[in-house]
């Protein structure tokens, strides 16, 4: 390959095409925006002109042979992977491709229970069975952490027939597991090591970051380029290690991925990769600095705990992603979700999410000092104006699940609707989760307990956005008929 990281082959091919003024008698029908004036005015003519269809000079994502292939090869090099795939169905698509290309119906896969719903969704589709490892829990913060190596080892010994181990790294909150040890452990037992790196693009480009999946020797990693990588929403990259059958993975991806992949998304991946390869170190240095400044300032307000590397324990909190600004709010007497709502409704500040005990503000190179100051000031004001006694606040975010059926069996079983408060002891036939972060409170096949019911009711009362159920109000659940 004659390209370097200064090139962006797909982006350059799209620019050439535009200069050539090719007459479009193909889809999309808006024809560079001329067919939809209002949309063009809203999104801009350049955006509409870049919304083109696959054609010979622009390659084809389903079967890449030229510029997309080259762009993917450059991405693989930039990430230190053997191969990479551009994914236009979100990191959900990447996670599903990892799971569906490493397991089949009835196969076991070891994973932490605090995975994103996309992982369990994949199991509903392909019928593999989850073996859950309970993540470590920090009781002070009430958040699930990473997996401890001991717990993974135990799961592997109890399930030597499992095909793969899936690792969340880092978690939404920035907590990392001992990736290298877990990957080595999986490999020693002949299992694939898959890493959900939805929150980890920057680990590949920043300085002094926690270890990334490819460097740890993982077989596959799902990387949300659109989160910290700067590409457009819904674009993602799947990375492969050297021992994975790339051609088979491509076939698995093509089972569910669109045949009309968006060139807006793909070109954004190509350009974002170039930018990360050239400027990533300084971009993430800036984000890390902002996050550290904000942590220090927020901790000086009192009542809030913006946690960081001081919690590293060599185990389930093996490392910390310092670009993350996760703040525990319980000592202000306010639930995280309440602070999240106040920030938006009273202060016009939208943060990434608030759960029962914490908020997460997403910090990136796109931030400016003045916005960081606003966030800190608003948090100080929220404490002053709305802070109260902290008694009565629910403080744990993780409940150990009791798995009675595989997600697929439960999802496709005969189900009936039952009022939430009557569901104690029943098997759940659907997902229940707060979104974000999208980590299931209940997954299909899990036993519903009184503790879970009161957790759901409390989350509703505090204003969490609950999703996954047929009942849009989450007043009832679909339970498996006995």
């Amino acid at each position: 390959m004659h390209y370097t990281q200064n090139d962006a082959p797909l982006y350059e091919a799209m620019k050439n095409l535009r200069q050539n003024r090719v007459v479009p008698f193909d889809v999309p029908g808006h024809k560079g925006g001329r067919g939809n004036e209002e949309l063009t005015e809203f999104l801009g003519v350049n955006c509409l002109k870049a919304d083109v269809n696959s054609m010979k000079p622009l390659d084809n994502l389903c079967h890449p042979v030229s510029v997309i292939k080259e762009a993917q090869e450059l991405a693989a090099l930039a990430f230190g992977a053997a191969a990479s795939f551009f994914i236009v169905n979100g990191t959900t698509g990447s996670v599903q491709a990892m799971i569906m290309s490493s397991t089949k119906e009835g196969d076991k896969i070891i994973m932490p229970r605090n995975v994103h719903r996309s992982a369990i969704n994949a199991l509903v589709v392909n019928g593999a069975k989850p073996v859950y490892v309970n993540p470590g829990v920090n009781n002070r913060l009430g958040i699930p952490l990473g997996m401890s190596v001991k717990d993974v080892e135990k799961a592997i010994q109890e399930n030597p027939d499992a095909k793969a181990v899936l690792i969340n790294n880092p978690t939404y909150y920035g907590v990392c597991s001992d990736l290298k040890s877990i990957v080595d452990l999986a490999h020693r037992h002949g299992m694939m090591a898959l890493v959900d790196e939805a929150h980890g693009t920057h680990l590949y480009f920043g300085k002094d970051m926690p270890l990334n999946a490819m460097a740890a020797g993982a077989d596959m990693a799902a990387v949300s380029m659109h989160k910290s990588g700067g590409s457009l929403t819904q674009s993602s990259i799947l990375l492969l290690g050297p021992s994975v059958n790339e051609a088979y993975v491509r076939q698995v991806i093509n089972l569910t991925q669109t045949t009309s992949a968006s060139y807006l998304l793909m070109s954004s991946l190509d350009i974002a990769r170039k930018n990360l390869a050239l400027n990533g170190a300084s971009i993430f240095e800036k984000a890390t600095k902002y996050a550290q400044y904000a942590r220090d300032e927020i901790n000086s307000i009192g009542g809030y705990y913006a946690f960081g590397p001081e919690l590293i324990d060599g185990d389930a909190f093996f490392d910390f992603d310092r670009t993350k600004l996760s703040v525990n709010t319980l000592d202000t007497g306010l639930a995280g979700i309440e602070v999240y709502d106040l920030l938006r409704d009273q202060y016009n500040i939208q943060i990434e999410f608030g759960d029962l005990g914490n908020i997460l503000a997403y910090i990136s190179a796109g931030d400016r000092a003045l916005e960081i100051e606003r966030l800190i000031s608003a948090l100080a004001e929220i404490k002053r104006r709305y802070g109260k006694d902290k008694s009565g606040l629910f403080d744990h975010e993780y409940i150990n699940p009791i798995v009675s059926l595989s997600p697929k069996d439960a999802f496709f079983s005969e189900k009936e609707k039952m009022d939430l408060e009557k569901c104690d002891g029943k098997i759940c036939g659907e997902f229940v989760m707060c979104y974000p972060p999208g980590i299931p409170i209940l997954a299909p096949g899990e036993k519903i307990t009184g503790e879970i019911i009161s957790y759901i009711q409390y989350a509703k009362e505090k204003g969490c956005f609950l999703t996954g159920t047929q009942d849009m109000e989450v007043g009832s659940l679909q339970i498996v008929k006995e």
Partner: protein
Amino acid sequence: MELWYTENHTDNVRFSIKVDKHLAAEKSDFQRIDVFQSKEFGRILTLDGYLMVTEKDEYIYHEMITHVPMATNPDIKNVLVVGGGDGGTVRELCRYKTIEHIDLVEIDEMVVDVCREYLPSISCSLDDERVHIHYEDGVRFVRTAPDGKYDLIIVDSTDPFGVGEGLFTTEFYGNCCRALTEDGILVNQHESTFYDSYANSMKRAHSRIKEFFSTALVYQAHIPTYPSGHWLFGFASKKFDPRTDLKADWWNSLGLVTKYYNTILHTGCFAIPNNVRNTLRETYK
């Protein structure tokens, strides 16, 4: 050859001043800073291309943002000026011997440097011994200021987009309220209502200030170089009503010579026209 400085007052309206000479063109960490020499308006300071002050009409803005609160409460001793790196507001404040301490918080040191060099008639009091300049973010400064420290806070800011954005927010006004004494006064540059884009910022700012102060009024001045020429200031206090609490005799006894402000205008400037009143009513909804 003709050289013109032009500012877009809206996407469809322009305001131009013929320029003799481009005296300074600097780029700081925060913004672009320019100074022009013109025949009609003397020297002109612009930030990111937006006109801030001209030598010819700056007195209107600086007198009105200062003397209205000062004539309302003669006991003002501690003053915080946020923004205002040109020094015009500080110059007016320094004319009061009763003031003991002035903190000037300007995020951009280069603005102060440029104004000291090119606009001495405006920046002339920055070296007064009562003036303490802090080069930092105003939002941060107010957040970390002690409770009840100031008798008067003047927000002498740019427009609510870019560098000055944080100075129009709920969190900023809340912290100002906390940093003011019980009889403290908050005065701010309050945009105008004539053009929609400015009207919206003005409405937002006003309703946010209302959350914290029992008295929240606007008063007006006519400033030829600002968009529409009609400009507003906000006056907020937990105690004073500037219309009835004016200490006219005291203020006139000081013998301050002003070119725009007087104690009759003081009451009159709160008599706002219907278009502004209607916009404010929308705010209260």
